[in-house]
């Protein structure tokens, strides 16, 4: 089990969501996040020039079985890339365990519905 966390452009969220659905990643969480990095938005207010120090991004958090890690990463890579600075990053983190609250099932089985498994 791995958690894949991807920080992506807000404008790319819909594309990433569709790409994930295409490879059968059916559930995940996402958050509005702010960060600091090389991407800058120069702004000007009443004649004073300033940089927005916070960059707004979306963080997508997906927990998958080990066999699905590569296809998830590839789906995000394909959908979130523009080639400009600020496309974001993908992190992969090991997960110790998972529990489905409704049934109490633990481990990989908690991540998918057995009857739909292909």
């Amino acid at each position, binding site marked *: 089990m791995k958690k894949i966390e991807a920080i992506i452009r807000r404008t790319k969220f819909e594309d990433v969501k569709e790409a994930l659905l295409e490879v059968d990643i059916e559930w995940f969480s996402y958050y509005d996040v702010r960060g600091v990095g090389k991407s800058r938005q120069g*702004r*000007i*207010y*009443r*004649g*004073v*020039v*300033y940089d927005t120090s916070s960059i707004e991004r979306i963080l997508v958090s997906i927990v998958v079985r080990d066999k699905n890690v590569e296809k998830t990463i590839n789906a995000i890579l394909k959908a979130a890339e523009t080639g400009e600075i600020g496309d974001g990053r993908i992190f992969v983190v090991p997960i110790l365990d998972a529990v489905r609250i409704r049934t109490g099932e633990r481990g990989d089985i908690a991540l998918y519905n057995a009857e739909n498994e292909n």
Partner: protein
Amino acid sequence: METIYTITDLALSLDTVWMLLAAMLVFFMQPGFAMVEAGFTRTKNTANILMKNLLDFSLGSLLFWAVGFGIMFGAGGFIGTPQLFDLSFMESDLPVEGFLVFQTVFCATAATIVSGAMAERTKFSMYLTYTVLISTLIYPVSGHWTWGGGWLMNGEEGSFMTNTFGTTFHDFAGSTIVHSVGGWVALVGAAVLGPRLGKYGKDGKSRAIPGHNLSLACLGVFILWFGWFGFNPGSQLAASGEENRTAISHVFLTTNLAACAGGFFSLITAWIKYRKPSLSLTLNGVLAGLVGITAGCDLVSPAGAAVIGTVCGVAMVFSVDFIDRVLKIDDPVGASTVHGVCGFIGTALTGLLATTEGWFYGAGPGFFLAQLFGAVVIGCWAAFMGFVIFKGLDLLVGLRVSSRVEEEGLDIYEHGETAYNN
């Protein structure tokens, strides 16, 4: 029994209705100011800035009725005699009560200019104290020198102004008498208060503190523009007869042209200077043009009005920059520039561009010098009184909220309620 009115009587009624209609428009400038100032400041101080705009009108109107009106229009050389609630001293063809309302909304305009410049860091109680003093002292006294028939507008043979300049000071609707008075008090107030926390970095560089809602600020500017169609044309105080209907139409046109020129040329200036067409400065540019044309809207030609609007719009961009970066006075909404500086420029330019007496029209420098003199005298009066009041209050009780209150917002600590809630 049938009452028969004479034509003269009906003409006076028409004038009265026009005056009261204009008073309504000028009153509507209050929400205009409230929206501009709320939009240019941060969410944590929105309830505070709205309260200031609501209360300087409410308290100011009561005080102007009780005290200020007598000081402004009563008999007397330096100041008029306070009449305390009694309006019977006033002799006028127009109903005195209507005239009081009309004058009240002008006084309230001068008062409310200051709230924006001192936004986000002034104690609410101190703002109310200041409101008392501008409505009963600063505005009515310089108003007495001019519209109250005092020495700056005394055109009698042998008076000071006619002896010195050969003519009197002219300020049709109040570039100097209303706007500059508010603007200079605002500049002095913001200077005495000091900048908002975080406005200047450790290296002294100016930092942007973006206002929270430019949509509100834009609505506010349009409302003020609308209100100005009462402020300037209404100051004719009459509509009946060919002379008056021509005059108010002319003033309508000059007012609008100056506003448009101010907005457009401040945009061009900001675009060249900062490489971006800046909305926040263009909004100020419209107001700069409006403030500038207010003194001479009856005397200049439409082309002259466009010139005044242009000069004020361009000067505004440089003045905002100068006050912010060089003087390091933190004026969040640009009130000292728009009302103080542009009011001064507009008053002075009237001396050059007035089609009858203007220097550019070959009438000699007398009128121009009278304009400069009046604008300087009233400017000094307002700035001096503003300094005495704000410095005095600061030494006596403290003008400014504590840094904790300023950081977390005046709404929570001063008022106990916030403008935006879930």
